[in-house]
């Protein structure tokens, strides 16, 4: 074996220097590798860090409201939980819920804004959910290939429309149509904003619901067909119930989006802070209030802090809603996968 090796190539014993160099090289590579891994991991943390920073920095501007002494000259602008929850009391008139941040005696009652947000959101969901869910069932259960090839890009296009464009459409076109059609007193109202908001929510509900429907295992459908059920029976009695948590999650995620959506409601709702439950009154939502008023407030004033507090409320609320939605999606996947094995 010695002679064989010697015949082909003389074997060079690595000198101590070469060994050291190789070791150094390997150690260098390993160090670089470790540094890169740490850097990648650190960057991955940015998403978590962002969520954390959003909470901290939006809260940082809002919270002094609750313990800071009123600034000199602004003693009458006392803001605390009871002024936020309202109503505003008057000596000579009945108490009312008021959002009137720019006045001699600013009033910061949140209920009008909350009612406004709920009204537009409810209309949006009532409008979007049936359409999106039925279309999702159509697309996953009944539609021939060609129809699916129209529906999918339609939804993607709809999802791609910037919200300012939807707001513009609602403001310039839809509002006039609705007013003529229903003989409404006010051009910009909760109904108008809600429908436009629904247009933004449809793609979300559709996508999540369709995902849920298509993840229902084929074996479910086959078993149903084998028992003699036809397509719509299978769809209603087997596939939809199995996918229900996912469909529900879609509605929940759509709700979260609708609550936080800003430009559409800002442009299409009329922005009057009222507490009526009529769907044809103008409304002012939480998000639109921030967008409309933040540009003109004095930094550090109670008004400024209340707007950030609204931001905190929106953030916490949508965070909770999204977490619920995600949980439902995951539970559905777990359930269907568990039953597949």
């Amino acid at each position, binding site marked *: 074996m010695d002679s064989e090796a010697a015949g082909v190539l003389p074997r060079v014993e690595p000198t101590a220097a070469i060994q050291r160099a190789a070791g150094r090289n390997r150690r260098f590579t390993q160090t670089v590798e470790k540094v890169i891994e740490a850097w990648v991991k650190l960057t991955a943390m940015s*998403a978590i860090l962002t969520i954390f920073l959003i909470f901290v*920095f939006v809260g940082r501007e809002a919270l002094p409201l609750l313990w800071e002494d009123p600034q000199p000259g602004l003693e009458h602008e006392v803001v605390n939980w009871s002024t936020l929850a309202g109503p505003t009391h008057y000596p000579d008139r009945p108490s009312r819920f008021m959002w009137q941040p720019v006045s001699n005696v600013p009033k910061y009652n949140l209920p009008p804004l909350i009612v406004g947000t709920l009204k537009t959101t409810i209309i949006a969901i009532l409008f979007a959910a049936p359409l999106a869910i039925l279309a999702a069932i159509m697309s996953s259960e009944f539609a021939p290939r060609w129809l699916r090839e129209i529906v999918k890009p339609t939804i993607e296009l709809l999802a791609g429309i910037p919200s300012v*464009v939807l707001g513009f459409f609602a403001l310039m076109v839809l509002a006039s149509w609705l007013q003529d059609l229903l003989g409404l007193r006010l051009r910009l109202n909760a109904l108008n904003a809600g429908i436009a908001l629904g247009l933004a929510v449809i793609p979300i509900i559709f996508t999540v619901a369709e995902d849920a429907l298509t993840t229902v295992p084929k074996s479910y459908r086959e078993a149903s067909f084998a028992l003699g059920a036809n397509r719509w029976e299978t769809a209603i009695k087997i596939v939809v119930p199995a996918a229900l948590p996912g469909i529900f999650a879609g509605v929940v995620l759509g709700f979260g989006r609708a609550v936080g959506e800003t430009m559409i409601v800002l442009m299409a709702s009329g922005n009057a802070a009222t507490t009526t439950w009529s769907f044809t009154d103008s409304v002012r939502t939480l998000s639109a209030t921030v*967008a409309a008023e933040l540009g003109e407030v004095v930094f550090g004033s109670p008004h400024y802090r209340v707007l950030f507090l609204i931001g905190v409320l929106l953030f916490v609320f949508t965070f909770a809603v999204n977490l619920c939605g995600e949980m439902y999606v995951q539970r559905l996947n777990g359930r269907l996968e568990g039953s597949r094995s």
Partner: protein
Amino acid sequence: MKKSSRSNPIGVVFVALCGIATATIVAMLAVILGQIVWFGAPGVSLEFLSAAPSEGMRGGGIGPAIFGTFALVVLMTIAVVPMGVLTAIYLVEYSKPGSRFAKAVNIAVSNLAGVPSIVFGLFGLGFFVQFLGGTIDSTLFDGKLVFGQPAIIWAALTLALLTLPVVIVTTQEALRAVPANAREASLALGATRWQTVYKVVLPQCTAGVLTGGILAVSRGAGEVAPIMFTGAAYFLPSLPTKLNDQFMELGYHIYVMSTQSPNVEQTKPILFATVFVLLALTFILNAAAIGIRSRFRQSLRPSDA
């Protein structure tokens, strides 16, 4: 049995309802696009695209707004793509399956995608403009107001955080599509993990990364709420040239022009044309992203088999 249930009215009605819902959605999109194209397209000309607004927004064009939008998304892309791609690389290539940290990152990403855009606007103002900009000013510029005010860099960074989930999710999908044997071959040849990622995996998913970048740009170009308080301005006499300049932006232009114009009827043609331009821009970007992605999927398929 089968015949009777097929002619069952409930079934017919249900399928018909599903069909009507689908048709309604398609029709609504057609109406929206139709209106905007019909009233907007005639107003678009080369001069409109390049000129500055004049006569108190009743005349001229949207050149500065297009330039501002462009500058904004370029800055945003520079910030978001490396951050998003590295995060995706961590999640797909480095994290161990079922690791707690990876799970936390995933939850954070999906929640970040759900944070309302107006909250990003508040965050941008509170964190970037006030805190970061304010700190830079007080340490580097002796408290002179340089970065502690709304500026294009802060708007771009705010948008970068908003679009981060888009890039992460798209890149993750692209990385997962690279077959495992490519990685195994590389590792078996003695390459380290990073060498494998950098020289073997990433080159195979440039298209995926590109898709993520384009989708982020199309999303960012249409967002108004996050940039309202972090840098966008309604009218500026000059184009932004420095990172701390304010800028004009298409979406913000549409918002202000349609809500605060004293005479909407007069600005209507210009408004529709501006909306048409913004919509065309986002759709072209989206179409490009979809095209690149489907090509990318096809190119990977043969090596999968």
